[in-house]
């Protein structure tokens, strides 16, 4: 059985913040069109991993391969033009820019024209009305939508999302995840960091659980139970 080459292939990543090691030999692979949930307790290294994949953090050792090429040393703008985009933890919108300007800025290094403004507004009608408003004046849910829209403007093939449900009402989170399904249907590959295990397992095919910088569990969602995931999450029992 031949396996298609994974769209994203992370091998043996070691990441340090000064003297502090955040990731220890982390490896993971995501297939084209797949969706992987990245879970783990606070401080487990999920954000670090996503940032390293996006290029905002340089690993001390290890490799990041994307669409067949080694991008480990590539700066963020190069990765974006190849098709990786990150929706950062805490949204991190540009407060003094309008909604529309935030999205336009996201297209700075865009991979292609696949996501012009009209298409983005069609996907997120809730923010279309507020396009000329300063991003800092929007509600949490709207800001999260803008953050995702900003990443979409780069026309990514691989979309990384870091804790998009943080601080949002369940209804709003539900809407966001519906949008994610639509994106998947349109061919996007997703890596989703999510605290809500149920949502993560519902929305994704594969699951990777990090514990204190190491991979504690990596398996298709269908083949693990919630209890097994929780055990890996807290580090109980043997792998």
């Amino acid at each position, binding site marked *: 059985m031949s396996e298609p080459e994974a769209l994203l292939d992370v091998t043996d990543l070691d990441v340090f913040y000064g003297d502090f090691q955040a990731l220890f030999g982390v490896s993971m692979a995501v297939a084209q069109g797949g969706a992987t949930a990245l879970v783990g307790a606070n401080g487990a290294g999920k954000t670090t991993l996503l940032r390293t994949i996006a290029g905002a953090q340089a690993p001390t050792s290890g490799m990041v391969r994307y669409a067949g090429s080694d991008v480990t040393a590539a700066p963020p703008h190069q990765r974006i033009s190849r098709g990786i985009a990150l929706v950062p933890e805490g949204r991190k919108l540009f407060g003094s820019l309008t909604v529309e300007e935030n999205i336009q800025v996201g297209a700075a290094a865009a991979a292609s024209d696949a996501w012009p403004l009209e298409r983005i507004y069609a996907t997120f009608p809730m923010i279309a009305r507020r396009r000329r408003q300063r991003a800092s004046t929007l509600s949490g849910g709207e800001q999260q939508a803008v953050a995702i829209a900003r990443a979409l403007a780069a026309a990514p093939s691989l979309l990384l999302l870091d804790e998009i449900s943080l601080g949002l009402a369940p209804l709003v989170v539900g809407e966001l995840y519906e949008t994610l399904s639509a994106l998947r249907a349109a061919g996007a590959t997703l890596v989703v960091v999510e605290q809500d295990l149920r949502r993560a397992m519902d929305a994704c095919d594969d699951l990777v659980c990090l514990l204190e910088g190491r991979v504690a569990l990596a398996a298709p969602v269908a083949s693990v139970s919630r209890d097994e995931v929780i055990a890996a999450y*807290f*580090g*109980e*029992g*043997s*792998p």
Partner: protein
Amino acid sequence: MRREEAIGSRDAEPSVTPVAVSRWSRTASAFTGACVVAVAIGVAVPYVIGGPAEQPLITLLTFIAVATLWNLLAGFSGLTSFGQQAYIGVGAYALYLVAEHGINPFGGIIAAAAVAAVVALPVSALVLRLTGGYFAVATLVVAATFQIIATLSPSVGGTTGVAVPGLAGYSDVLREALTYWATLVVAVSSVAGVYLLVRRTFGLDARAVGSDPVGAAASGVRVGRIRLLAYLVAAGGAGAVGALIALQTLYVEPTSAFSIQYSVDMLFMVLIGGMATIEGPIVGALVLFALQETLSAYGAWYLVIVGGLAVVTTLVAPRGLWGLASERFGWSLLPVGYLVRQPRTGTGRRGHDRE
């Protein structure tokens, strides 16, 4: 805890070996002893050698004093002031006024320091609202303002300046010797004072404030208090130095009293020597002294070199000469941090007090 028990794949931790944490070392004792001896020799200089040795030593000691004080501000507390000359000038003029009123000029040094600290109090209420580059320029503005006020004050001679009275009774030799001893006292007090201050909690707090004021405040450090204390101490010290300079030049006028050159020198010495160490400014003072003696004949080029070295040092060797040496060789003559000794290896390794 449950979690630790359950992580079967982890090796059991070995029993904890006791470590010794000390704040002093034999090297430090030896060095302090050597310093005491040096100071004793210093006191004897006017008797033994006299005139020719005093002048350069006065210059060197003044450098050591101002560098140490500036380091307290910028190296330890993160306050990059380029306006210390404001207080040097205040000290000089204060000395003049004190002497005018018949008080012994040498006693006036203390008065000058006090006046400078008092003046610094309301100023601090303004400038300490700022940080970083904005603080730096604000201090420049304050110094410039003081200079203007001096030029507009006929009672202290305006633009022309005034001669310092009250020293006619002293012979030249005696006056020089007294000035020298006074400078020695100021220099030793500055270094000792800053050292003792920094070794206390103040030192740790100050460095926390210097590197991350928000984090420091969140940890309960009284950020405002720390910065104020550093600022006032530095101002008082600068005032004393200003008085000393007035005693030497016997004349006080605005342009030289408030000259920005003082700040250039302070910056250079602390950068080259090493910020946030006690030894650094002393090393820097020696370097500047050597440079000045050899290069001052070249006028403006000397300053180009000084400025250039400051730039290069910041970019290439931000920890300065002493910082490099202490990292390379583990030297610590006047430790301010915590030394952690591991009994196994028998050697001390500097704990996390580097900045």
